[in-house]
């Protein structure tokens, strides 16, 4: 074992057997998350971000899903080889998850305090009183005011932002090494979104947990992540540290994404917002060669039939494009 990564995903392939063929939702995806860093996983809807996250947590429903290949090494152990009960001890304890929908991710018939307590009691042998103290501590950590009384609230008594804080408190309750945040701010309005992102950045500093941050929002990624991987149609197209990716993107898809961010007040009036032509290919009918070639402005003949390899540009900057071969 060379360098010990906290999480190393190697050639992960998650396929879904559905009527009409095999959906390659995640195809040959590799990345690492180091201790204490935030890796941003960015891409359009349906590109396989969430399936990647669910594969790590082994939450992909099998069938129709299956892990067709690859390894997911967490602290050097392949989570795909763990038994169901060993996996339960990892979930919520060492790796936890923050969900997109704060309105529906909490059970409506239990108080929020009891739901956080549930996570702790599943993984730690503690008395009722100790659990209660830890729940209050977790609420304090996520800056919920008056935690002693707020733990007695039902989800319907809380606002969306507060519920998302509860969900983060649940994720933090057992001091996990890795938090997987699947679009944690998407369902919130912009001011609350900013608060939640600030909170997550602070919590990362305070707890030292790594974050795998999944979003379609490049602005959010820029604020959160040290390293970024761009996914497209189930494959990673480009990965680099955040500064490089935003300052010097190499893959035509990444460049397309960067130029389609609207910038307030800059540019001439007649200049229209640039877009990437075409639509994401259907996972049923993936184009031959490079997955992006039909929409690519710099595609040449080779791209239409030969799949580009992952090319290392140095300093951890990798890109999947023939341009750099």
């Amino acid at each position, binding site marked *: 074992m060379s360098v010990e990564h906290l999480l190393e995903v190697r050639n992960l392939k998650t396929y879904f057997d559905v009527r009409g063929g095999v959906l390659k939702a995640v195809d040959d995806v590799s990345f690492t998350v180091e201790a204490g860093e935030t890796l941003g996983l960015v891409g359009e809807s349906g590109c396989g971000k969430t399936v990647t996250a669910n594969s790590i947590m082994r*939450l992909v429903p099998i069938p129709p899903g299956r892990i067709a290949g690859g390894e997911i090494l967490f602290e050097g152990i392949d989570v795909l080889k763990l038994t169901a009960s060993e996996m339960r001890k990892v979930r919520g304890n060492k790796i936890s998850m923050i*969900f997109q929908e704060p309105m529906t991710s909490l059970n409506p018939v239990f108080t929020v305090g009891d739901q956080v307590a549930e996570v702790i009691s599943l993984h730690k042998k503690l008395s009722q009183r100790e659990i209660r103290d830890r729940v209050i501590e977790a609420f304090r950590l996520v800056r919920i005011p008056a935690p002693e009384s707020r733990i007695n609230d039902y989800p319907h008594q809380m606002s969306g932002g507060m519920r998302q804080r509860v969900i983060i408190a649940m994720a933090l309750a057992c001091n996990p090494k890795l938090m997987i945040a699947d679009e944690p701010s998407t369902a919130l309005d912009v001011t609350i979104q900013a608060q939640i992102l600030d909170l997550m950045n602070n919590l990362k500093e305070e707890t030292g947990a790594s974050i795998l941050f999944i979003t379609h929002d490049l602005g959010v990624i820029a604020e959160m992540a040290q390293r970024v991987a761009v996914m497209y149609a189930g494959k990673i197209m480009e990965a680099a540290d955040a500064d490089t990716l935003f300052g010097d993107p190499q893959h035509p898809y990444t460049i397309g994404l960067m130029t389609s961010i609207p910038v307030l007040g800059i540019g001439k009036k007649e200049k229209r917002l640039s877009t990437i032509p075409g639509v994401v290919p259907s996972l049923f009918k993936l184009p031959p060669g490079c997955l992006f070639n039909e929409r690519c402005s710099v595609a040449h003949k080779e791209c239409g039939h030969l799949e580009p390899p992952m090319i290392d540009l140095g300093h951890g900057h990798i890109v999947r494009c023939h341009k750099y071969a």
Partner: protein
Amino acid sequence: MNFWTRITNPEDRHPFFDQIEKLFKNRTGVAGLIIITLFVLTSILAPVISPHDPVENALYDQLKPPVWKEGGSTKNLLGTDDLGRDMLSRLIYGARVSLTLGIVSVGIALLFGSMLGALAGYYKGWPDNIIMRIMDIILAFPYILLAIVIVAYLGPGLRNAMIAIGVINIPRFARIIRASAIEEYEKDYVTAARAVGASNRRIIFNAIFPNCLSPIIVQASLGFGEAILSGAGLSFLGLGAQPPLSEWGAMIAEGRSMILRAWWVMTFPGIAILLAVLGFNLLGDGLRDALDPRLRD
């Protein structure tokens, strides 16, 4: 978030209580609740309030009419049957039998039905197929016929009648809970529960089941009335409660040969059954109005 042990003391009531409060604003529900309260009180206080021993024969007082008819007396307010037993006392003790029958048979149906339904709805696939096909087979039999078969096999008697009625009601509960479990299974909080490391059993009983309670309560209330009716039916056929136990269905059976001479022997137990079943059905409807989210205003 265990359903039974909690670390928090909510200041606000459980959302369930708001729905119960709604029940109290519902007239049919309250009417049902009043009838059932009277029914339950009657069965609990039977030894105190019944004027006579329900099985005591009085050979000189046979087939006395109720007090308001010619020949009736205040000694037997609702008259006597062919053995001179006091009708009122027998009706009061009959409430006990019916209440026990309802509790036991609905209990059996609820326990097994909800477990099977939850398993089928949660695991889907082949467990679902096996469980629900067995339920379909049970439902395919005519209700009372299947009960007769079960009682014939186990032997007549109140206990076996209760078991039979419980068994034939299992599919109703199983179907309802399966449907709710499938619906709840898709909710995000179930995935969230799995993501924090909860086991399947815990997810079923701690996350999904408490969210399926409303339809279960409604079905239990309606099923209670139906169980009383079935129990009376079985007793009428001689397969349920055995003499001299005073059971309403058995009383109707005993009185049917005297319908022209002494109408009261058969009529009063009939009215008692009607009232009890009506009470549970009204309560069931009221509960449905209060608990069904689709009917909420």
